[in-house]
């Protein structure tokens, strides 16, 4: 049983780590803020989630697991919020996203609303 | 119960009064409370000093934990003396502050001002009384932070930059002290200063201890504005509210000197070799240069407050010379000068505050004809100035006398001459003011000036009078200073 749990947590941790690293690579490789957000979002969600899950398996049914779960929930709440806030701030301050081949006809970002900070 | 807890009460009384002051929204009430508390603190300091003189050092274990595990208050002759200075100046300045602050600080900030003032007092007293190295740092920060605040409340906008500069320098200094304390702790495993003093000789002067020594020295030196590291001081003093200037000028740097003394002689012990080297080869020359250079700079100041500020740096030089000699005479001179200068400079700044209160400026040119219009005030200034110069029968003379004696004892004629030359430079800058005040007629456009209110004049005269009194009756200042010096040199070596 213990071995099973260990292996499971192993797998989860490895997976999480892999996603985290890949996300970080993306953070470097992607060309502009908006696309980097996706990479960052990756580490935030699955990377963090898997690692925490792996730890939860380790922790067993204890306080630790509860706290880990809390952290996870917390991350899942805050991460998109801050990403959204970031995208929103960047977009409304007039940072033009790099776009692909096809124009989807989205409205252009508005002009800067307030004086530059 | 009260008698046994005097050392704690010395600090905690002002400390508990500080938040209470804030709760009293009315500035006058806050002032009354602050004054009452500072008087009580003064009484306690007197009681402590007599107790110490009678029966030797007092140890007080805070929280009931035996040192070195708990924090210990250790009152010996030296710090009882420093406590007395700080508490006395605090009480006098607070008595003085009401009118002065009423003019210089917006009414809504009065209670906050007195809160900060009491905190500053607490901090300085706390630094002086504690026997624990880290506790010293904490209280040092209380006093520093509150003094930044107090300085920034000056009316001139330069008060802000001055406070900021002081903040940066003060924090660097304090951090250096922390590093030093940390290294000491690392080498000995204790924070209690007496314990440190007992353990360091066994370790000897290894590199860590040497580095700790260097950091403590530099840190304290920044705080006390020894010559090359002084540049934060003139502005800070010049633009702070008058009462604050008087208080800080006569206490803050003195307490920093106390820190240095404490570390040099109690912690490292007077025989610590690096110390001797530093003291003789570094501190004395620097202090001598400080005396000469800063006195000269003071001559060229157009603002009397700034002038006195530079003079303060020079006077700190005198104290450091005395300490640098590391002999009984030298230390006596340094400690006595610490006291005498606190009284004198405090008095002078209070007098200056009276002038500012009346004519709203302390530029040299604006003082023309004041000798006639504010005779009592200006006369006090002259007396204080004489003490600053070191004319006989004033406090300034007494300590300089002993100091020159110490220099001659060491065969250090150069320094002896420099001390006397410093007095002459002091003569020049004091006399510039006197001449303007007495011999230059007031311009017609000058505001009508009368004497400052009694509530300001009397405290100023108390200090000026004291500076004369202690020039004549020296058994307290010199006697205690000598006892402290002997204690420092003998107690730890």
């Amino acid at each position, binding site marked *: 049983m213990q071995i099973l749990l260990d292996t499971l947590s192993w797998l989860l*941790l490895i997976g999480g780590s892999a996603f985290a*690293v890949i996300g970080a690579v993306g953070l470097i490789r992607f060309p502009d803020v908006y696309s980097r957000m996706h990479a*960052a979002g990756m580490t935030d969600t699955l990377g963090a989630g898997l690692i925490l899950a792996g730890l939860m398996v*380790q922790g067993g049914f204890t306080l630790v697991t509860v706290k*880990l779960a809390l952290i996870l929930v917390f991350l899942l709440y805050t991460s998109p919020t*801050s990403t959204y806030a*970031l995208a929103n*701030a960047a977009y409304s301050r007039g940072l033009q996203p790099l776009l692909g081949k096809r124009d989807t006809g989205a409205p252009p970002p508005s002009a800067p609303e*307030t004086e530059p*900070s | 119960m009260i008698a046994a807890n005097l050392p704690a009460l010395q600090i905690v009384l002002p400390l508990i009064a500080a938040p209470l002051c804030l709760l009293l929204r009315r500035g006058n009430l806050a002032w009354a409370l602050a004054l009452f508390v500072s008087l009580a603190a003064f009484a306690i300091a007197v009681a402590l000093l007599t107790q110490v003189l009678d029966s030797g050092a007092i140890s007080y274990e805070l929280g009931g934990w035996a040192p070195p595990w708990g924090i210990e208050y250790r009152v010996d002759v030296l710090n009882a003396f420093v406590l007395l200075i700080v508490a006395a100046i605090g009480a006098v300045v607070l008595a003085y502050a009401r009118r002065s602050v009423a003019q210089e600080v917006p009414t809504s900030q009065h209670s906050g001002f007195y809160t900060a003032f009491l905190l500053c007092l607490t901090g300085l007293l706390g630094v002086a009384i504690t026997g624990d190295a880290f506790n010293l740092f904490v209280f040092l920060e209380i006093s520093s932070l509150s003094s930044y605040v107090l300085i920034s409340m000056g009316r001139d906008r330069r008060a802000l930059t001055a406070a900021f500069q002081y903040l940066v320098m003060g924090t660097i200094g304090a951090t250096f002290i922390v590093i030093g304390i940390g290294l000491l702790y690392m080498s000995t495993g204790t924070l209690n200063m007496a314990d440190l003093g007992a353990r360091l000789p066994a370790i000897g002067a290894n590199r860590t201890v040497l580095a700790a020594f260097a950091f403590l020295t530099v840190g304290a030196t920044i705080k006390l504005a020894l010559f090359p590291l002084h540049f934060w001081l003139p502005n800070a003093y010049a633009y702070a509210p008058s009462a604050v200037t008087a208080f800080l000028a006569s206490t803050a740097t003195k307490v920093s000197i106390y820190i240095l003394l404490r570390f040099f002689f109690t912690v490292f012990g007077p025989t610590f070799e690096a110390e001797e080297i530093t003291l003789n080869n570094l501190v004395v020359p620097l202090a001598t240069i400080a005396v000469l250079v800063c006195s000269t700079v003071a001559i060229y100041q157009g603002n009397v407050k700034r002038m006195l500020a530079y003079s303060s740096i020079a006077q700190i030089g005198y104290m450091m010379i005395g300490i640098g000699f590391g002999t009984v005479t030298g230390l006596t001179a340094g400690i006595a000068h610490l006291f005498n200068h606190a009284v004198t400079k405090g008095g002078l700044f209070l007098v200056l505050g009276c002038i500012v209160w009346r004519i709203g400026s302390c530029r040299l040119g604006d003082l023309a004809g004041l000798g006639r219009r504010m005779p009592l005030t200006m006369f006090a200034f002259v007396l204080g100035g004489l003490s600053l110069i070191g004319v006989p029968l004033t406090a300034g003379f007494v300590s300089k006398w002993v100091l020159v004696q110490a220099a001659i004892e060491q065969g250090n004629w150069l320094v002896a001459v420099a001390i006397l030359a410093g007095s002459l430079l002091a003569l020049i800058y004091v006399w510039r003011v006197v001449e303007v005040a007495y011999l230059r007629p007031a311009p017609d456009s000058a505001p009508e000036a009368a004497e400052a209110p009694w509530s300001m004049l009397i405290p100023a005269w108390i200090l000026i009078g004291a500076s004369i009194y202690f020039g004549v009756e020296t058994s307290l200042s010199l006697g205690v200073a000598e006892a402290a010096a002997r204690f420092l040199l003998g107690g730890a070596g």
Partner: protein
Amino acid sequence: MFFAAILAILVTMSLALTRALLGPTVYDRVLAVNSFGTKTVLLIALLGFLTDRPDFLDIGLVYALINFIGTIAVLKLLKYGNLGTAVRELERNP
């Protein structure tokens, strides 16, 4: 086992740090910092397990929280140049 994960996290962190230093826009930095913060939370959690004292996860929780607040503050500043006014009010009269 935890060690490998920690290593991975450290790599991630250093990459994020690189991004934070490279910029080029402020938003990149914010993003990197935010990401960095998340990684730190994970790192703390892993460290707790590594040292066999996993009961310090509170720190991780605090991290996550503080990181969030910090990011929000930065973004609000970036977007409005003001921290004190309610978002709603700012939206009404920009």
